[in-house]
């Protein structure tokens, strides 16, 4: 599959994850979010940017449990909980947020 962002064709896999992680930019994120019916707010971007930093450092997309804990550590307990993250990304902060952040599907995510 492919989507068009600013005249550039971006390849995605059958689940909508980027095939080439280097294709990501904020405009691509907006397009990916549109496919998930999510309007990105500052709160979404906070998580997306966190995920990108995490991936940059560890070369994996974190499991939800690990993400939740790490967000709590960095952004405070009011954000490091399942309810907050699922409100932002209803189909799962792991899968959905990682997709919009241009990361691969988290390891162990089915």
């Amino acid at each position, binding site marked *: 599959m492919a989507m068009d962002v600013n005249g550039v064709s971006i390849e995605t896999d059958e689940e909508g994850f980027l095939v080439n992680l280097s294709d990501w930019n904020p405009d691509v994120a907006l397009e990916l979010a549109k496919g998930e019916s999510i309007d990105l707010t500052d709160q979404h971007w906070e998580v997306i940017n966190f995920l990108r930093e995490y991936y940059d*450092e*560890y*070369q*994996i997309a*974190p*499991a*939800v*449990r*690990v993400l*939740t*804990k*790490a967000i709590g550590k960095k952004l405070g307990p009011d954000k490091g909980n*399942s309810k907050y993250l699922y409100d932002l990304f209803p189909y*799962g902060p*792991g*899968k959905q947020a990682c997709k919009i952040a241009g990361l691969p599907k*988290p*390891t*162990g*995510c*089915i």
Partner: protein
Amino acid sequence: MSDDMDFEEGGAVKKFMFVNRKAPYGTVYALEGLEVVLISAAFDQDVSLAFVDDGVFQLVKGQKTDGIEMKNFSPTFRALEGYDIEKLYVERESMEARGLTEDDLLVDVQIMSAAEIGDMMAQQDVVISF
């Protein structure tokens, strides 16, 4: 993916040891082994990792993989702490035979003799070798 997965209360926790024996690149064993370890973390078991033979190379700092067009997955070992996997054992004999010291490794580990690693293996419920 599991978030608040509820396991039966009082379910037995087993001791799992993943033994890494091979160099990080050239075969897929090291990367696949690491993925299994990450998945195993979701099940709240007692997980440890042992690095023996060429497996000790997996933990060496400063891996550059551009030339072989492979992803350098060694930074992922530093994420294990966040997955509550903190028992990493490295066999002293394997390390010394390859001219490595603890300072060459990218994560905190416990250095053990072959005999001590053998004892640890004997205490496990499950030993899986990669």
